[in-house]
């Protein structure tokens, strides 16, 4: 998905790396965004940031700081896993092994989907890795979905070796950027909600994995990634609003419970087997979770 914007973040955190690469800042007051292409590391000041019209006090508790650091580690781990699994997947593509490539496709994408909002803020990696057909000009289209189309629609790896090599290069490039990444707590706040918005806005219709119908892998991974961000913020949230924290936890449980019947072996049934009314119920469970989750910004109140 390319259209994603972390707009809340963009307006107020001109200094954070997260912002720097996210493109199209909504206001002209976002002066520094132009300088930090490719996610160049910049230090955030932490305590207080300003833009033209507002002074915002950001909470700077040890819980928040620690949670953010732990989340950075999680992002790094997932990126490592992404590299590992993408290697196996692209090897299979290059070797012309269609069945093996199909088997490895969805699992390779899982770590990507878990950290998508973070990874996607880093300059061009999102379109390069994850663009769907029509998202980018035809001759620039590469990445997972390009190969997906060939594997499922034409049942071949023919002509895909170049995209496999490019994908591997992009994933490794992403890993390099992630190693340099320093996050602000606000990235966890927006990221956790955004992962669910990903599901509500797009994946629930099955448009993401339109050829392979492996959408449930993505959906589960989005929810897991969201939960991880929430978990890291939880100690801070327990102080601000314990009721909200336990409410969110219950709603996560209820989303997982809704997904459970669709498990099959190590993975998930094809999304085409999920009926329209079942998709609606799943979507409504997501909304029920995302609504209280959108309140966790409370931990940032100074």
């Amino acid at each position, binding site marked *: 998905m390319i259209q994603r914007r972390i707009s809340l973040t963009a*307006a107020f955190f001109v200094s954070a790396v997260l912002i720097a690469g996210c493109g199209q800042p909504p*206001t002209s007051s976002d002066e520094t965004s132009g300088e930090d292409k490719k996610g160049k590391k910049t230090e955030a000041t932490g305590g207080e940031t300003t833009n033209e019209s507002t002074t915002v006090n950001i909470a700077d508790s040890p819980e928040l700081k620690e949670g953010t650091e732990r989340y950075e580690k999680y992002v790094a781990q997932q990126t490592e896993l992404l590299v590992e699994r993408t290697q196996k997947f692209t090897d299979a593509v290059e070797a012309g092994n269609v069945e093996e490539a199909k088997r490895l496709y969805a699992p390779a994408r899982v770590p990507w989907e878990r950290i998508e909002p973070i990874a996607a803020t880093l300059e061009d990696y999102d379109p390069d890795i994850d663009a769907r057909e029509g998202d980018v000009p035809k001759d620039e289209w590469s990445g997972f979905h390009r190969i997906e189309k060939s594997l499922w629609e034409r049942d071949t790896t023919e002509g895909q070796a170049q995209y496999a090599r490019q994908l591997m290069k992009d994933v490794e490039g992403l890993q390099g950027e992630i190693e340099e990444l320093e996050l602000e707590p*606000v990235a966890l706040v927006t990221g956790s909600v955004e992962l669910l918005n990903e599901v509500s806005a797009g994946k629930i219709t099955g448009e993401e994995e339109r050829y392979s119908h492996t959408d449930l892998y993505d959906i589960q991974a989005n929810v897991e990634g969201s939960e991880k961000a929430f978990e890291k913020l939880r100690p801070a949230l327990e102080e601000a609003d314990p009721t909200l924290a336990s409410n969110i936890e219950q709603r996560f449980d209820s989303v997982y419970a809704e997904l459970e019947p669709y498990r099959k072996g190590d993975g998930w049934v094809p999304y085409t087997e999920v009926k329209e009314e079942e998709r609606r119920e799943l979507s409504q469970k997501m909304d029920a979770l995302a*609504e209280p989750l959108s*309140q966790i*910004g*409370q931990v*940032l109140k100074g």
Partner: protein
Amino acid sequence: MPNEKTLGKKVSRRDALRIFGASGAGFTLGAGGATLATRYAAAQDVEGAKSNGLDSRVPFFGRHQAGVSTPQQEHLQFAAFDLTAEKASEVRDLLRSCSGAAARMCAGEPAGEENYETFLPPDDTGEAFDLSAARLTITFGFGPSLFERDGEDRFGLAKKRPAALAEIPALPGESLDEARSGGDLCIQACADDPQVAFHAIRNLARIARGVAVVRWSQLGFGRTASTSKSQSTPRNLMGFKDGTNNIKAEDEDLMQRHVWAEKGDGPSWMDGGTYLVARKIRMLIEVWDRVSLDDQEKSIGRHKYTGAPIGKEEEFAPLNLDRKDEDGEPRIPEMSHVRLSRQSEDERILRRGYSFTDGMDVERGQLDAGLFFICFQRNPRKQFVPLQRRLGQNDALNEYIQHTGSALFACPPGAGKSGYVGEALFEGD
């Protein structure tokens, strides 16, 4: 960006006096009536004018819920909800929060207080900022399935279910879509500004997230009844005045007799409440438009332009069903809508419906439009049900209409200032 600066920005006020919306005409279950009211005269309706000024607020709290006897507003957004909650306490908390937010919105205030926190989504969604309250009313109701679903007493409320809340039996001539029918809860939002009405439903649905989900929702774009003597009679999409003979709020004895549930009618939590029946009535307008004026008038039983009973000149001329023409035939035909609607004084109802369109019917390639019929009464089993059974069997209009959705709700009495709607159901014995 939700900061104070942008929220405070002036947005041009969208809804001027709705000159055309304020006129109208009517049908279903009773019909027409004539005044010499032109569109412009209609625009001078007292409450229409008020909606633009400082008197655009209708109190939310009171003995009865607002939105029943309130002079009917021009626009509707209606939503039915299914509860996903498992505990009665969750439903109670929901009603409490929704009542609080509803009271605020009806007073022209945002749904919630926190709208300026940088790191949080604003409590209110914002699209009604800078708009007047537009006489917004928010009316809550409980469907039969709140009390019992598939034989299960979901919330321990089964013993409190009023007999009057018996499911509407199958009626002749209906073709109901389950997905557009029923619901555990309903919220009716009426306002003179469609955006204000939509805003109310949107914000309440947001508050309900995790406890209830929207089952179906209907937008109504023009009132098809008048519920006050200060209002002129509007026209429905058949081009006829609708609601000439409606119960008017000023007729307090009729309201008492036909609309408000009284002590002793049923469980005490409904004392001062009323029962809402909603019917989605698709009009086959393409077919109707090919019918001659004479046949149109005979189907309704009134003249199209004046709204007068056939053979009369004044909209409010008495509907004398015994009149015969020179051949000895009844002037108001046997199968006409108004005659069939007026068989029994006991069946009178307060109509409060709206025209709707859902865009296009792709199957037929026709406009998908009609009447979203809403009525209030003391006991649907004695009022709406026998009335509609007779109409469904014989009404000359049946050729041109189809009932496609149906729902029934018990609307409890209004809330006291520190209370919430439905309090007596959830807190009482």
